[in-house]
């Protein structure tokens, strides 16, 4: 299995899927490398920065992927299925945790930082934390639509397949989610130019 199986936009081609279906460990490794950050990021933001939850979800999704990949014939079907797995895993975990403990930890865990001055990093971190908290406070259906749109850049059609709802419902959830975020975080509007 060679990396040339990866297409330029970091998605996968049918050969990668076929390799995985034959049980090629390098194929699975490749899938993991390509999708791990996306799966992890969705879970991390869904669970308000809870790294342990995001870790579990990532592991769970890839384990399921390894045992069920034989069902898939094309990469488009595959990516839709993968995001549906992530969505279901997140919803299931939230439901399970709801009974015993909150999925938000007492103090929102920190998301690792990038190389910037500490002062700037602090301010950016505060901003990111606010956005993350506002996203985490959205209703789960709105939250997942927002994450799939903005992390994965899925089309409304793709999101509707992943979430099992109509395209109109996706549009409505995104509309509502964007409005809630804008109202809740209106204080971050300074310096924002709607024309940009």
């Amino acid at each position, binding site marked *: 299995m060679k990396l040339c199986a990866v297409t330029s936009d970091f998605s996968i081609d049918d050969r990668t899927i076929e390799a995985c279906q034959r049980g090629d*460990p390098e194929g699975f490794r490749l899938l*993991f*490398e390509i999708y*791990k*950050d996306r799966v*992890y*990021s969705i879970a*991390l*933001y869904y669970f308000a920065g809870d790294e342990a939850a*995001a*870790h579990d979800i*990532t*592991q769970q999704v890839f*384990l*399921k992927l*390894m*045992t069920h990949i034989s069902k898939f014939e094309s990469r488009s079907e595959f990516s839709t299925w993968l995001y549906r797995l992530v969505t279901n895993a997140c919803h299931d975990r939230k439901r399970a945790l709801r009974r015993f*403990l*909150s999925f*938000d*930890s*007492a*103090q*929102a865990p*920190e*998301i*690792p*930082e990038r190389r910037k001055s*500490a*002062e700037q990093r*602090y301010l950016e971190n505060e901003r*990111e*934390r*606010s*956005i*993350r*908290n506002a*996203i985490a406070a959205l209703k789960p259906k709105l939250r997942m639509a*927002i994450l799939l*749109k*903005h*992390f994965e850049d899925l*089309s*409304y059609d793709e999101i509707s397949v992943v979430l099992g709802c109509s*395209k109109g419902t996706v*549009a*409505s959830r995104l*509309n509502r*989610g*964007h*409005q*809630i*975020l*804008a*109202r*809740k*975080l209106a204080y*971050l509007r300074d310096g*924002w130019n*709607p024309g940009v």
Partner: protein
Amino acid sequence: MIRKHVIHHLSAYLHGELTAPEATRVESHLHDCAKCRLAFEEIQFGSYLASSIPEETAPGLWWQEIQTAALAGKPDAAKGLSWFQVCTVIAGAAAVFAFSAFLMDHTPVSSTSSWEIASVRGTPRIGIARITETSRLRPGDTLQTNSNSEVELKIANIGQLDLDPNSRIRLLSTNSDQHRIALDRGKITARTWSPPRLFVVETPSVNAIDLGCIYTCEVQRDGSTMLHVILGLVALDFHGRETTIPAGAYCRTRPGDGMGSPYFEDASDRLKQALEVVDFGKDERDRARHLDVVLQESRARDTLTLWYLIPRLRGDLRGQVVDRMMALAPPPEGVSRAGVLSLDETMMNEWKSVLERVW
């Protein structure tokens, strides 16, 4: 000419998801309709915020864990169980069933739609109606007490709420996800025994999020709020910024300004008075003068207060706070003054974990 508003199509328009004729219709409507233009700007801003969060990196080492788990058969746990495993699962299920049956018999039924009034003194009202001990508080209801009345009510089945005289609350929502009230004025005492973050009190200045605790929350005439944590922890949230208040501490908040710095109840009166100016004062020189008092009066335990002052202050003032903290509770190895001054998060967290032992 009356034309149908296009608000419901604005995200789809923004993301290029409409057909050409639909997009033209939206565009033309936006040109003429100020209401939809405002909504569009809002949606653009919401979309901009959501798209500005960075993708995070999952450690590559997890691949080893996944492979190990896969080899152990974890993904298909239902298949290929041994008889011993089957028996264990059955025994576990039986135990869970028995425990569930016990709980059903012994746990109060969760009311997802209203809260039970536990006791009443005087003549409190829900809306305009006088309440009795059989009344229930429903979402949308306003419960208020006058100078001669008090109420105790159950927060669904997760806790108890006492409403002092001259207080008013509104029940905003109550369901298995969250129970939320607004405290418009007066004082409540909340006792909860639920998982964290199930009970939220909205005040005119911040939201108080229960993390499993006993606390009082008092909203004063000017909308400022005083929180006192008696047991456990409470998080105060101001536009997504959280401050966690430990047991024995107070925190004042103000509308528009959010949280002040938390302080312990046994801190000196001089510290408390000076802190008010440092937290909410507008005159920088006055704040600096009062900071001197806070620093002089601080004990090791008051590093709680100083900790929350660090990011609020700049330049020399921040340096003075860090120096005082270093004298009161030296940071662990690897945490430098320069690092803390520049708000190095790793160092801040390392030091905080040491400080929490004296808080």
